[in-house]
């Protein structure tokens, strides 16, 4: 049904269509509207049978999902930011046990300093937790990805995270098509667990595994994610066939066929980037955009293939590895190793700073004009004056080649917005 609806509520309805039997959640902005919506749906009986657990923490939320899933129930939760970190231990456990829990992450920055606005630091911090990570670029896609997520999770017995930008998507009221129950039921069969807590067939779940088999267990986890690289596009294709619209998949290109500059990004910023790309195309610039839909598993081959023809690759991401560089950027470099393209790492939209078309266009033009040093981390819309002042103040702490080079960068960067 087509409706003008807030992203969070749309996701809540989509999750309802997936018939979760246990929802356990702990409130944290900007995830709250999703679980509030589900709580309502459970109370009104629209979602039934389903148990809604008001747990005492995100750690408890994920733990309850682990228990529910082990008991053969379809389990769902949602969180963000600090909450995701508070779950971290349980995330690894859910994936280690191969429990097909599905979780929405309403992406939000991580403190300190405390900041409730959007970026990808939370999800990126858990990129190695063994969870599949899918990124939605619109509320429609968020709705569609959840349906695919349950299918994927239960097909492979692997937990899946659907990432959607906090506030930007969760709180945006937009036109969204929410699938009918019958359609979803056709697409998503009932959950048949691979392991089950059942007095009729007792099993020991969660054994202690020593050096003799731990490597193999982890290898099999990895193999499962590699298998997901085939399942994700297959499921996306099936979804498009039965729902009549495209969503998900591994990567999605926008005007990359003949592009010699390709912007790589994930999440809601893609729409804005595509808008800039189109306007620059109108001016004759051969630029395109590549959206990463599945960050875990990392579709190295697909990325490599998509970027093969490009000379420049600009990775715009909403998180970075402090003291190292871009995270998506590093993965892109890995995918491109041994090939031509120059990769630019740009961090943007940290802690909710708006990523405007103006800034993006300025960035792309600078890149095209070789005003940006490749292979180094850049910060979009950085207040260079301010940081210079601050660095000056503590200059004593900054000596040595690396620090000096950083200052030089600031000097040059002072010219541009990044």
């Amino acid at each position, binding site marked *: 049904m087509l409706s003008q609806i807030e992203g969070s509520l749309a996701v809540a309805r989509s999750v309802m269509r997936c018939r979760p039997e246990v929802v356990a959640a702990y409130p944290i902005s900007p995830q709250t509207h999703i679980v509030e919506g589900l709580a309502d749906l459970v109370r009104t009986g629209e979602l039934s049978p389903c148990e809604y657990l008001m747990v005492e923490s995100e750690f408890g939320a994920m733990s309850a999902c682990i228990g529910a899933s082990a008991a053969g129930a379809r389990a769902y939760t949602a969180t963000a930011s600090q909450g995701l970190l508070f779950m971290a231990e349980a995330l690894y456990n859910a994936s280690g046990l191969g429990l097909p829990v599905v979780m929405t992450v309403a992406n939000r920055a991580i403190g300190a300093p405390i900041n409730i606005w959007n970026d990808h630091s939370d999800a990126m911090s858990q990129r190695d937790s063994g969870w599949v990570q899918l990124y939605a670029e619109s509320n429609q896609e968020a709705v569609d990805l959840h349906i695919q997520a349950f299918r994927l999770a239960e097909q492979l017995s692997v937990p899946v995270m659907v990432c959607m930008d906090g506030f930007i998507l969760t709180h945006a009221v937009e036109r969204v098509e929410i699938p009918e129950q019958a359609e979803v039921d056709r697409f998503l069969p009932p959950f048949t667990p*691979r*392991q089950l807590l059942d007095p009729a067939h007792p*099993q020991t779940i969660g054994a202690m595994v020593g050096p003799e088999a731990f490597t193999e267990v982890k290898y099999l986890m990895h193999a499962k994610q590699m298998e997901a690289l085939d399942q994700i596009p297959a499921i996306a294709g099936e979804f498009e066939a039965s729902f009549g619209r495209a969503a998900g998949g591994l990567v999605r290109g926008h005007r990359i066929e003949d592009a010699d500059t390709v912007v790589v990004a994930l999440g809601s910023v893609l729409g804005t980037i595509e808008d800039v790309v189109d306007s620059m195309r109108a001016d004759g610039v051969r630029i395109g955009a590549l959206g990463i839909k599945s960050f875990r598993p990392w579709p190295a081959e697909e990325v490599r293939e998509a970027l093969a023809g490009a000379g420049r690759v600009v990775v715009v991401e909403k998180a970075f590895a402090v003291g190292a560089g871009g995270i998506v950027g590093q993965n892109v470099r890995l995918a491109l190793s041994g090939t031509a393209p120059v990769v630019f790492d740009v961090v943007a939209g940290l802690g909710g700073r708006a990523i405007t078309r103006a800034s993006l266009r300025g960035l792309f033009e600078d890149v095209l004009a070789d005003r940006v040093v490749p292979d180094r981390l850049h910060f979009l819309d950085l207040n260079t004056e301010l940081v210079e002042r601050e660095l000056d103040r503590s200059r004593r702490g900054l000596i040595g080649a690396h620090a000096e080079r950083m200052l030089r960068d600031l000097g040059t960067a002072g010219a541009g917005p990044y």
Partner: protein
Amino acid sequence: MDKPFAITLDVGTSRANKTGAWRTERPVYTDRLSPCNGACPARENVQSWLYDAEEGELGYERAWRTIMRTNPFPAVMGRVCYHPCEDACNRGQLDEAVGINSVERFLGDEAIQRGWRVAVEAEPTGKRILVVGAGPSGLSAAYHLTLLGHSVTIHEAGPMPGGMMRYGIPRYRLPREVLDAEVARILDLGVTLNLDTKVTDLTATMTEGGYDAAFLAVGAQLSGRAYVPAGAAARVLEAVSLLHELEQGRRPLLGRRVAVYGGGNTAVDVARTAKRLGATDALVIYRRNRDRMPAHEDEVREAAEEGVLFKWLSTVAHVDAAGVTVERMELDDSGYPRPTGEFEQLPADSLVLAVGQDSDLSAVEGVAGIEIENGAVRVDRSMMTGHPGVFAGGDVVPDQRSVTVGIGHGLKAAGAIHAWLGAGSPATEEPAAPADFGTLNTWYYTDAERVHRALLETVRRRSTFDEVVQGLDRSNALFEARRCLSCGHCFSCDNCFSVCPDNAVVKLDQPGAPYLIDLDYCKGCGLCVSECPSGAIQMVPEDI
């Protein structure tokens, strides 16, 4: 279900891991010697028959038959035994000893009432055995020898069987119908009893009768000698003859004030009897104090209740018609009485001497090989005298003198005679380790106060010969039996099965062998041993 590798396992698979390999010690089920059994002169397996009796109606007869394997006089024992078993009973250290004696009496009376009997199952051996004396020891020997298939003849000098059971123990402690019933049960097995038949020359009697072996058990029927200066007209009697007369229905003249000289049970019995014969004063004179008195404390207590008076630390210096002159004694450091030279006059119409008894050994005087020492016949460990084939027991051999001891001798001698006749080997089993209090885990025993047998009210005790001590009824006999701790013996409480952290105790549910240690898994922690209430498991080192 295609469950994930390694993280999800099939149940119960750890049984493949044989943890028994960790063990340095292993638990072993064992039977220890219960203190009651160790203390019983009649060699009764008390723990075992109490175990049977715990079952109530279903177990009473089995319990009685267990007693009868060693002692043919349960009803008598249940009255006259001074029950050293109860003195030894571990429960005494917990609350109060189990009333073994009262349960035994209950079982004995049940048997008489219900007419339970034993039968000779052994094949006749064709051997003839002479038993001299139909007292506890002789009758016991006759009983056991008969059950072993021998043909037994008893020569009894007196007119009635029973010996000291009849002549030494007043009827108010042992009703005669009880004694007669148990004696009859023995005779009914086919024992020949010749009364008023005194053996004067044992070897002669044996040759004449063609006996293969003999058991001498004439007891100690002669009053002990004690010189007491007596004036003319002094009335002095001897305890044993007095009790004999009484048993034959005569009423000896004692007067209203009776003094009894001696500290043994006989002395007390005489005093209590005197009371019943109408004496207003019955006074027991003893040279030491109450603590050192040989008489059993129950007897002394009951006597006191009946009004018998005691004069401690006194010896009789002189007796005449006026009464008794006693000299006060004092105990030296070794507890031996010492004269003080202080004298006291006590009014008394008669003095009864109860200063011990001697055996009439004329039957064996001069028999080759038989040695007599301080009035007793020397025997070896198997109760055989220096004369091959001649055994002796009861009061004629140097040992404690009591009915129970005598019965024990009879049992032991019977086994020895049986062996000597080549029909079996003498019993030589290693005595098991004692089940002393420390080996028990008494926590597990429910608190339960002992039930005491009721006593006849003292008025009737002063005037009649009715039985003083009453019996237990069915319910409290069961209660008392169940107070037994089964020291040193498994009674299937399932503790070991329950407390094993490794499920290494297998429950077999078989009588006799209830459990088995599964050495594949037993780690040797020893919990089963510590938590066994009765100390019936012990740890033994593994040979490594």
